[in-house]
């Protein structure tokens, strides 16, 4: 035989896991408290999904991207807060711009874009105060098709019937303040394109309104809570209630410390990151089930054994399984971290952490929870006898 069985984890380990349970619990509590404090003090680095605003991905036409000069250029455009980060490789960057207001400054930007794209003879001015109107002035007479082409250069879409019908050199475009605000996002994108377009290609643009973020956060929190609730109920149904609570504590531990990782490394908290948090909640239980399954089996088999001893015994018995299942997922996720590209980066990092911490918490946190909840073998036996007596 060319191949010999490979035991990455020795068959008969006798680690005293439960002896260190107070240390582990203390450490974990500290990590969790720090995570929550960090969350409260520094907050999450919310992505555009949650925060709203504009995100533009650009790539250098030639050579590498110079973040400093790009930052200086885009920061001086008068678009408010602009932040830059490199994105994936050294040619690509993500420009984040705060959400634009539909004010006169935005119309002034549109004026500049129009002059830049259509010629100096053009001008764009705000209409009546308080309304969303914009007045375009052309260097010469235009018909409605001409007007339509002209205003589309600043990203403005208007219905044909709102354009002047007769040939004219002045057109007032009617917009509500909300419509103008929405248009101003597109104007800002054009402003950036004009400023850096000679050296950079725009690869994607995103503009997200302010309303959606709060809703996403809301449904995200509900999703996390519902997932936890459903899993605990399932565990309770399949095991004793103490197992359910133990699993819940382990799960909370994993989720909170994952959020701590997001806070610590300022990872972009986007919708995919939220998906990672929920998957970790689901995955956390995976290893816990393996350990708990054995604990339950041993509780029935060794009725006299002391609980701490029994837990230690069960954990050691299943150690190889617990670690090996984690390794396979770890390997797959590691490939995502390395090759998955910038979009998946924060998701993959979070998952990687989730796999590690999920394994740790199954061993220490979930089982230590059982000890603190005083799960007794006798208790289980009584219940079983009761059930038998009934049957």
């Amino acid at each position, binding site marked *: 035989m060319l191949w010999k069985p490979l035991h990455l984890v020795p068959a008969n380990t006798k680690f005293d896991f439960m002896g260190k349970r107070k240390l582990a619990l203390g450490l974990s509590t500290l990590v969790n408290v720090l995570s929550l404090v960090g969350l409260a003090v520094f907050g999450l680095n919310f992505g555009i999904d949650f925060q709203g605003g504009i995100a533009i991905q650009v790539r250098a036409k030639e050579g590498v991207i110079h973040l400093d000069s790009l930052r200086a250029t885009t920061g001086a455009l008068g678009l408010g807060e602009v932040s830059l980060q490199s994105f994936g490789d050294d040619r690509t960057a993500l420009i984040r711009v705060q959400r634009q207001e539909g004010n006169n400054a935005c119309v002034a930007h549109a004026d500049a874009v129009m002059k830049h794209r259509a010629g100096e003879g053009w001008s764009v001015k705000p209409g009546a105060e308080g309304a969303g109107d914009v007045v375009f002035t052309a260097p010469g007479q235009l018909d409605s098709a001409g007007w339509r082409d002209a205003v589309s250069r600043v990203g403005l879409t208007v219905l044909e019937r709102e354009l002047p*019908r007769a040939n004219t050199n002045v057109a007032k475009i009617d917009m509500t303040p909300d419509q103008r605000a929405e248009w101003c996002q597109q104007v800002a994108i054009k402003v950036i394109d004009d400023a850096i377009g000679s050296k950079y290609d725009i690869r994607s643009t995103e503009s997200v309104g302010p309303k959606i973020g709060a809703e996403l956060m809301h449904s995200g929190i509900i999703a996390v809570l519902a997932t936890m609730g459903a899993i605990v109920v399932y565990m309770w149904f399949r095991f004793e209630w103490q197992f359910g609570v133990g699993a819940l504590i382990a799960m909370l531990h994993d989720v909170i410390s994952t959020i701590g990782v997001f806070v610590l490394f300022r990872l972009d908290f986007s919708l995919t990151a939220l998906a990672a948090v929920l998957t970790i909640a689901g995955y956390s239980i995976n290893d816990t089930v393996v350990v708990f399954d054995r604990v339950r089996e041993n509780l029935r088999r060794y009725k006299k054994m002391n609980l701490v001893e029994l837990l230690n015994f069960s954990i050691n018995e299943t150690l190889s399984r617990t670690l090996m299942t984690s390794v396979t997922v770890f390997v797959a996720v590691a490939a995502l971290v390395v090759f998955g590209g910038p979009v998946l980066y924060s998701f993959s990092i979070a998952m990687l952490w989730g796999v590690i911490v999920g394994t740790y918490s199954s061993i220490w946190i979930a089982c230590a929870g059982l000890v603190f909840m005083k799960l007794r073998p006798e208790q289980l036996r009584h219940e079983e006898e009761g059930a038998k007596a009934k049957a």
Partner: protein
Amino acid sequence: MLNLPRWQTIAIIVFTALAGLFALPNVLPESIDNVLPKWYAQNRINLGLDLRGGAHFLLEADLRGVMNERLTNVSDSVRAELRKNQVAFKEVSVEPNGHVLVILRDEAQRAKAVEAVRAVDPTLAIAGTGPTIDLTYSEQDLFRKKKEVIDQSIEILRRRVDETGTIEPTIVREGDDRILLQVPGIKDTTDLKRKINQTAKLTFHLVNEDVAARGQALPATLPPTTSLVPTREGMQALRAANPKAFEEIQSANPRLTPEQICRRFQVPCLPVFKRVIVGGEDLDDAKATFESQQNGGRPIISFTFNAAGGRSFCAATRQNIGKRLAIQLDNEIISAPVVQSAICGGSGIITGQFTTQQTQEQALLLRSGALPATLTIIEERTVGADLGADAIHSGTVAAVVGTLLVMVFMFVTYGPLFGGFANLAMSVNMLLVLAGMSILGASLTLPGIAGLVLTVGMSVDSNVLIYERVREEKAAGRSALGALTAGYERALTAVIDSNLTALIAGVLLFGFGSGPIRGFATSLSLGLLTHLFTATIFTRMLLATWMRWRRPTELVL
């Protein structure tokens, strides 16, 4: 025992082969694709917007406006019905909380009034005491109506965006009042936005010539059957003369009725009967065309009615020769030509001062029907095609590398035989997921690929659980056969528990999540679901078949 009846073995193999068949169109080259029947070849996984590039919009429907309009209609009908039944009332008003209040002059007429209300709409919930009657729609009814509005909007959007059926947009409902519109492969969104913005509600009304004959611009009193609607020329004149007023009309919330606009802003209006003779829903077709040269050759819109529309139009024109017929589009009268003769051919034309482009656009909007609610864009994203190509590349590399690493790991740890079983089961699992996604017509996004990679990692888990248990049983002194059987059976509960709990998370993710989360949740949940099959039945078949064939006395594991 680890035995499996022969029929089950055959069933599993057939099932797996079927899955392979359904996953196959995804990898077939186009030349073969064209030969195959369409229903089969079309079963393939769509690439999401982030992978193929295109535009993404999140639209919000103005449901409040729709509900308000509905309540206004109800209050009008109630008023008319009460008058018809000679019930005296102080007022019928639409309240901001979504109720219609009727206040009677005489409490004694309450029963009669309630009957009249029932005649208007039997689904109205009636409350209130004494002279007050409080009308409202039930929650269920509102919910149903809202759903109807969104569903209808989606249908109409589809017709407008994808008239030719080649663009394959994704248009789905998001939450209560939103619609997600994704159009692959486009870069300039200007044209698209134009198609989304207009409601295009077309109705034909008779002009009330008696009122019009009075010659007043704004008649002080109107018969209840008649209302004032501004003319298009009038609105355009207002826009030129008083832009602020026009702004006010556009942004008013709740929206102003046409008659309110007429009275408040002194716009030139026409008195028209409220009764709709034919509506846009009865249009079969609308085309942009030109008048004959004798008539000036201007761009016009020609339309055809369906049978019902044609009949009503025929009857109405026959009875009203010499009167004007107003063509109303989105609360403005485009034109009001005099009926020269009965028009019974089921078709007609709309003239107005149109340009060619305008007639083409209007015709498309009329063909597709009116949007039941105004839609506002609240989120807009575009993804360039080359960015999509990059995403495909990095996703594929990550998936391939991840899968290979897992396979190598399994081979190294459990040997060519058992590692091979695990990898075979994992490959079958992937095949099932791809087949499932093809059958569902699901979109594969970058987060979806992440879900697949995660599935790869998790689907060998159950083999690990089984093998580790077998090792334990072997160490405890069982025979090869006994260790394998016991290992499989005892690991099964842990396998099922861990899969079901992860599946719970996956399904909830799908339920609550939106956008990128959905794509991830779809592939992950599907992967876990199919994994329940491969981990339990398929692996069992492999082990049982192998044992029957080799009858091993010693396990090398």
